[in-house]
């Protein structure tokens, strides 16, 4: 058990624990905050696994933008501050399917990799990542930028105030 293993275990536990809290909490806002912790732990995991740029992008974009956006939406939809009782649907299909998926994947992966020891990779530099993106994956990169543009336009269109009118009532 190296230091890396200990750190992986610790951060993994934090990520899973706070992830569990996200999906079981009765407070809407607390779910969002638990999500921050979970994503942060994952960013830490990235660091240990040698994907530095990814870790910081995770913190900047995921934690910084996405979760903030989610919390904005929570506030805009008049979420109650205290606990809400009617936040959950029946548990058993979720337990069966979710538990099945999670445990199944875990078993699969554990069976595939066992307790094999791998060398720690070199820390990934921005330069290395940039070479990859603009070298091999430049086309997807461009498409992604178009996607972002489409998402932007779509979000604006979907936010129009008159979009709720029915077909018969449109003037």
């Amino acid at each position, binding site marked *: 058990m190296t230091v890396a293993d200990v750190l992986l275990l610790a951060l993994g536990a934090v990520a*899973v624990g706070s992830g569990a809290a996200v999906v079981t909490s009765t407070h809407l806002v607390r779910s969002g905050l638990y999500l921050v912790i979970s994503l942060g732990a994952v960013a830490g995991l990235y660091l240990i696994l040698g994907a530095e740029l990814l870790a910081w992008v995770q913190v900047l974009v995921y934690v910084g933008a996405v979760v903030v956006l989610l919390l904005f*939406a929570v506030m805009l939809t008049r979420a109650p501050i205290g606990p809400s009782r009617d936040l*959950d649907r029946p548990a058993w299909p979720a337990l069966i399917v979710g538990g099945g998926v*999670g445990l199944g994947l875990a078993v699969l992966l554990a069976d595939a990799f066992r307790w094999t020891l791998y060398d720690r990779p070199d820390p990934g530099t921005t330069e290395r990542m940039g070479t990859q993106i603009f070298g091999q994956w430049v086309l997807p990169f461009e498409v992604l930028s178009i996607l*972002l543009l489409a998402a932007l336009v779509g979000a604006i269109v979907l936010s129009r105030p008159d979009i709720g009118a029915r077909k018969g009532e449109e003037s």
Partner: protein
Amino acid sequence: MHAVIPYVTGALLFGLGVYGVLRRRNAILVLMAVELMLNAVNLIFVTADASVRARLVGVQVEAWAYPNGRPAHSGGVFALFVIVLAAAEVGVGLAIVLQYFRMRRAVHVDEIALQHENDEQVSR
């Protein structure tokens, strides 16, 4: 390092995400659970990047895996793309949720009418 640890972590996070999607009533909480799922996927990508390539000793790897004579780290690149996609998805998704909130004053997924009432009667 033992790569099984982050793998299992990713698997468990994915399971938790599925559980959350199926359990939660509030649309925004569903989106949070979807974020969990995406993160799990990213984690597995990155772990694969670190583990699978490292082990392929004595195996002739295809030329496209080593574009510049060095091993590629496509897992990380994919994870980056997933993050971008997640951002776009959350933006559009929340726009829809807010629009729905404007119409119905609530965002509970099990109250969404997938068809108009008269459409339902016609199809019957």
